[in-house]
């Protein structure tokens, strides 16, 4: 029968993608779990031995872990706060009648398309350099002392750069959501004498609740594993001040070659990401039915 044939074909077409993704998910994860139970250092080959949960104990009680967990949370929280708090008014502004809107949109969205290594280096040098950077010069114009960004406030500097990269993303999604807001609803509210502020609070903001949630979840997934920006600007320093979980695992794996401990750390990162992913998948799944 034709339908049976179709179904068989459909399954055949789906199989390669499912098989590949399954292998991609399961093999490295299984290996990570396996390595996490070994004493395994690449500098000390042949000494691999089973140590049970020792690596987890080592990784989780390492002061560097607590410091990097804190940095990760501060970084994710700050970038989320900055991009949402600035993104909402920016999206509202771009939703107004603006002459040359398409050009303004292009300028606003541009940072998102700049590769992370470029934005990090341009900000670190051309803008934030304590002597020759543009910010230092502006501070000088106002008679203020120049800030040595990456020494005095290293984590904040990284946060600033990453916020610049993600603000366009938040704005674009919020703007897309705003444009689907029923114009008549707002008009009706205005006719009934609602002020701009109450229109915003009672109509616009509830409408934005869902896109804001989506922005928070998606940004969190990417921000939990920020790497390139830290790699090219601070290398995790000074000290551990800009080391996040991702960078800590990288340095244990590829600088200290401690496979066991890095794997244990990797699993901690997987668990953290999964907590966020759980909520995101539920929201997307609900939308799939609608």
């Amino acid at each position, binding site marked *: 029968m*034709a339908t049976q044939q*179709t179904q068989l*074909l*459909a*399954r055949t*077409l789906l199989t390669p*993608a*499912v098989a*590949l993704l399954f292998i*991609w*998910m399961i093999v*490295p*994860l299984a290996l*990570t779990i396996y*390595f996490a139970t070994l004493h395994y250092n690449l500098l000390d080959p042949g000494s691999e031995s089973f140590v049970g949960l020792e690596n987890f104990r080592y990784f989780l009680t390492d002061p560097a872990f607590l410091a990097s967990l804190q940095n990760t949370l501060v970084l994710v929280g700050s970038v989320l706060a900055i991009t949402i708090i600035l993104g909402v008014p920016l999206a509202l*502004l771009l939703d*107004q*009648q*603006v002459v*040359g809107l398409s*050009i303004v*949109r292009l*300028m*606003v969205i*541009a*940072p998102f*398309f*700049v*590769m*992370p*290594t*470029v934005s990090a*280096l*341009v900000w*670190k040098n*051309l803008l934030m350099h304590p002597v*020759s950077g*543009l910010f230092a010069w502006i501070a*000088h114009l106002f008679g203020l002392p120049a800030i040595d960004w990456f020494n005095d406030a290293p984590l904040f500097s990284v946060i600033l750069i990453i916020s610049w990269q993600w603000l366009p993303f938040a704005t*674009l999604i919020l703007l*897309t959501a705003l444009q*689907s807001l029923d*114009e008549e609803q707002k008009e009706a509210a205005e006719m009934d004498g609602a002020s701009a502020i109450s229109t915003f609070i009672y109509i616009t903001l509830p409408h934005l609740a869902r*896109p804001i949630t989506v922005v928070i979840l*998606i940004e969190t997934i990417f921000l939990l594993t920020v*790497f*390139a920006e830290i*790699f*090219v600007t601070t290398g995790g320093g000074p000290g551990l001040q800009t080391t996040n979980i991702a960078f800590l695992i*990288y340095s244990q*794996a590829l600088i200290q070659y401690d496979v066991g401990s890095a794997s244990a750390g*990797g699993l901690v*990162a*997987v668990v953290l*990401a999964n907590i*966020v*992913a759980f909520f995101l*998948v539920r929201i*997307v799944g609900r939308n*799939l039915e609608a």
Partner: protein
Amino acid sequence: MARMVTTQRKVISTAAAWLVGFLIFFPILWMVLASFKTELEAFAIPPSFLFFHWTTENYVTVQERSDYFHHALNSIIIAGGSTLIAMLIAIPAAWSMAFSPTKRTKDVLLWMLSTKMMPPVGVLVPIYLIFRNFGLLDTRSGLIFILCLGNLPIVIWMLFTYFKEIPKDILEAARMDGATIGRELIYVLTPMAVPGLASTMLLNLILAWNEAFWTLNLSTLEAAPLTVFIASYSSPEGLFWAKLSAASTLAIAPILVLGWFSQRQLVRGLTFGAVK
């Protein structure tokens, strides 16, 4: 009907929007300007905004001293290759789920999405060791493979949402006229799907071009794409601002152009259809 907007309000929002847009875009503009300065002027305080000695010398030096085109070619091959392969795997899968959905289709889709949630750093160790043991470190094929798998869920999802929008009646009509599935795929579906295919490819190209976790960790020189090439400017002895700017401008220019064309698809692709 659009709401009546007073001229005054329009002037204010226009001025505000242009000011904010300019501020956000400024770092990129500043970088492009610096790429046309001499090293001395790029470093100078007070900085010169437009009235400096314009030169294209940096663009020449970047190629001569560090073989820019070698890395640009790597970027093109890696981003293009991983995108093409991902499309080849994703098109049949998305087609199958959009047009012959089963009870489990939703679960399969959500499961695919969840593989994208896996933080790359969680599997850095095994991937690095596998690459080392199979001689894949610093090879283009290794990077193509890994970026293809990393973006596959997004590609399948985007294609799925586009295919979903193609009316099923058309397929049924074609079937009634006796079209085989192969013909249906080539003559009916493909023309209707071209816009969706194009924007999916575009977004995937952008993501692969800018990918900076696997490229930084798995390549050093031979296969290094532009992300890694630019990162080499971070060493203190390599601090040449004008040359860094020239290399950066070249590295982001093609993707900025592509990106501007794909703004709308970006939202769909990165939110997995949760915001339209």
